[in-house]
C-alpha cells in the first residue's frame, strides 16, 4: 500500500500507459511544458519527449478531431480537454464523429480514443469555468463515460479505457486532485462498466458520482449519527449506466436520493430517478429525491457558490425529508 493523491494516480496511470504501449500518446493544451493546468501530466514531457506528450494550440475542435483521426490510424491517443467547459467547442467532433463513426460505417471503423477532462465547480472560478456536463455526455450513444471518484479508480480506469476499442471519456473533478488515498502496490486495471457500493446501509440509498461521492459519504456519516444507515452507490460508469446496482439497492432500502453537481433540470440525476421509479416503483416508500446544483450560472462569490452546490447539509436534510 502506498499513500498517493488522485493527481498522482492519474499521472502514474498515464506514465504506465506511455511505457506499456508505444501507440499511446498524450495531447492537449499545456500538457507538456506547463505540466498540465492541474499539474497532472507534470514530468511526462521530460520522460517521453515532445512526440508523445504534445502541447496543442488552442483549437479544441481540431485536436479532439485529430485524436479521433489518430485513433482511426491505429494510435491510442489520450486527449486532454483542459476542462469540460471547453469541451463545448469540441462537441461536434465527439458526437458526430467519435460516437457515430462505428455505427455509420456499418462496423468498419471503431475509434479507440480516450478523452480526459476536469469538471465541476467549488473553486470560485465563476460561470464559464464551473460546468458539470457529465449528464450531457451520458446522453450520447457510441461513447463510454466514466468518472473515477477514488485514487484506485483514478489509477486503474485509464488502463481499461485504453484497451477499449471505443471512445471513452474520463471525467476528473478539479476538487479531487489533492485527495489522498491508499493504493495497493500492484494496482492495475479496474472495471469501467459497473457501479460500486461504497458504504452499505439499509434505510436509504444515496446515488452519487465523481465530486459528489465525498459529499454523500460525509452525509451518510451524519445520518448514521442520527440513526439512519444509508447505502452509498458510486456510479463510476455514467454511460452505459449500470442501473442494476442502484435499482437493487433502492428496492431493498425503499428510499433513494441522487446527488449530482449538474443543474437539476435534465441532470443525470433525473435519469437515475426515472430508472429507479421505472424498475423499483412498487418497492419505493417515497419518491426518489434529487440534490443537484441550483439552476444558475455559477457565481464567483463564495457564499453564493456554496449555496448553489450540493452540500452535506442539503443531502442530510433531503434524506430526512425522505423519512429515511
Amino acid at each position: 500500500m502506498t499513500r498517493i493523491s488522485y493527481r498522482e494516480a492519474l499521472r502514474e496511470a498515464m506514465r504506465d500507459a506511455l511505457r506499456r504501449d508505444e501507440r499511446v500518446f498524450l495531447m492537449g493544451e499545456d500538457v507538456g511544458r506547463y505540466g498540465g493546468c492541474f499539474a497532472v501530466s507534470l514530468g511526462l514531457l521530460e520522460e517521453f519527449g515532445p512526440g508523445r506528450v504534445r502541447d496543442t494550440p488552442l483549437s479544441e475542435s481540431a485536436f479532439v478531431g485529430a485524436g479521433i483521426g489518430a485513433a482511426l490510424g491505429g494510435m491510442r491517443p489520450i486527449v486532454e480537454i483542459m476542462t469540460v467547459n471547453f469541451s463545448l467547442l469540441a462537441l461536434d467532433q465527439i458526437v458526430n464523429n467519435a460516437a457515430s463513426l462505428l455505427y455509420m460505417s456499418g462496423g468498419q471503423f471503431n475509434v479507440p480514443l480516450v478523452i480526459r477532462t476536469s469538471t465541476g465547480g467549488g473553486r470560485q472560478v465563476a460561470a464559464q469555468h464551473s460546468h458539470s456536463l457529465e449528464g450531457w455526455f451520458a446522453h450520447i450513444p457510441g461513447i463510454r463515460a466514466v468518472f473515477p471518484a477514488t485514487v484506485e479508480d483514478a489509477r486503474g480506469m485509464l488502463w481499461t479505457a485504453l484497451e477499449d476499442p471505443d471512445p471513452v471519456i474520463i471525467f476528473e473533478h478539479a476538487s479531487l486532485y489533492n485527495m489522498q488515498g491508499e493504493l495497493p502496490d500492484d494496482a492495475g486495471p479496474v472495471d469501467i462498466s459497473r457501479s460500486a457500493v461504497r458504504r452499505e446501509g439499509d434505510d436509504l440509498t444515496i446515488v452519487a458520482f465523481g465530486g459528489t461521492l465525498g459529499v454523500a459519504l460525509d452525509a451518510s456519516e451524519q445520518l448514521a449519527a442520527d440513526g439512519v444507515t444509508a447505502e452509498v452507490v458510486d456510479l463510476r460508469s455514467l454511460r452505459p449506466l449500470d442501473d442494476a446496482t442502484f435499482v437493487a439497492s433502492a428496492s431493498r432500502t425503499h428510499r433513494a436520493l441522487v446527488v449530482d453537481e449538474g443543474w437539476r433540470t435534465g441532470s443525470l440525476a433525473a435519469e437515475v430517478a426515472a430508472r429507479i421509479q421505472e424498475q423499483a416503483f412498487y418497492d419505493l416508500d417515497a419518491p426518489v429525491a434529487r440534490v443537484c446544483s441550483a439552476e444558475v450560472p455559477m457565481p464567483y462569490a463564495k457564499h453564493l457558490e456554496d449555496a448553489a452546490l450540493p452540500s452535506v447539509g442539503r443531502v442530510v436534510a433531503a434524506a430526512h425529508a425522505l423519512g429515511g
Partner: protein
Amino acid sequence: MSPARHALGAAPVGAQPDGDGRHAVHLLDQMIRIRRFEERCVELYSDTRIRGFLHLGIGEEACSVGVMEALGPDDAVVSTYREHGHALARGMSMRSAMAELEGRLEGCSRGRGGSMHLFDAATRFYGGNAIVGGGIPLAVGLALADRMMGRPRVTACFFGDGAVAEGEFHESMNLAALWQLPVLFCCENNLYAMGTALGRSESETDLSLKAASYRVPAWEVDGMDVRAVERSARDAAERVREGGGPHFLELRTYRFRAHSMYDPDRYRDKAEIERWKQLDPIATLTEALTGEGLLEAGELERIEQAASTEVDDAVAFADAGTLEPVEDLENFVLSGPAPGDGR
C-alpha cells in the same frame, strides 16, 4: 511577391508517362463511370429507391479522378457528403456503393449511412462526412498517426469552398502545418455553398491566401481538366510524402446540378451554368483525346457500354440486396462490452 505566390513555392512539375495515351483514356473511363453512376442515382431517387439527401458531383468528376490517381493503396481519403465520385475513383465497388444508397445490408455501411456516409476500410476511405468541415480534423489525425508510426503515407482531405469559413478548417490547417503532417488538402471550389456564392462567404476569395497564412504551399488548379488535376496532385502528394508538410490544392470546379435533390437552384444564373457546362471534364477530355488521336475507333462506345453495364449490375445487386434485421438495430453502437466486463 503576393501572399499566394509566397505560398506557392516552385510550380508543380510532376507528370506521369503517358506516351500512348492509355492513361488518359483510363482517366476518361473513370470519369464516365462516375457520371453514369450518378445519373442513375437521379432516376432511382425519383423512383424513391434512394431517399434522404443526395448530393451529386456531376461536373466535378475530374477532381475525384485526378486526385485519386495520385494516391497509393496505403494512402487515406477523407471526404464529404458529396463523395460518390471520391469513393468510386478510390476503388470502392460500385455494387457496395449502390447497395448503400438503397439502404441494403450489402451496402458498404450496411445501409446505415446512405449517400452521405460511404465508408470503405479496404481502400482506407474514411467517409462520407455530412458536417461541413467535420472531416478535416480527422485527416489531420490520420496523418499524425502515420507520422508517429513513420509510415510514408499521404491523407487526402476533400472539402468545399464553403468549409473554408468554418473555424475547424483553420484550426486544422494550422495544426497540420505546425506539426508538418502529411495531409493533402483538396478544396473543391465549385463557387457555391448551397445557395451562397463564395463572394458572399469569404472576404478574401483567393483561397490560396488562407493557406499562405499558415505557411502551407497552395496551388490553384483547373478542376475541370483531369490531367491538370492529376499532375498537380501527384506533385503535391510527392512533396507531402517526402516530408514537405501539408499542401493545399484549390480545385476550381463547378457542380452542374443543384446542391441536392431538394434544391430548386434559384440562386445561380442559367448562363453561368451553361458557360461551365462548356468545360465539362468528360466532353473536353474526349475531344482532346480524339484530337490527339489517342482514342481508338469505337473506344468511347466501349467505355460507355462498360459503364452502363457496371451501373446496371450495381443496381441489380442493390435491388437484390437484403435489409438488415431490425433486431440488429443496436449493433455497432459500441464494439462490445467493455474490457473485462462479463456482460
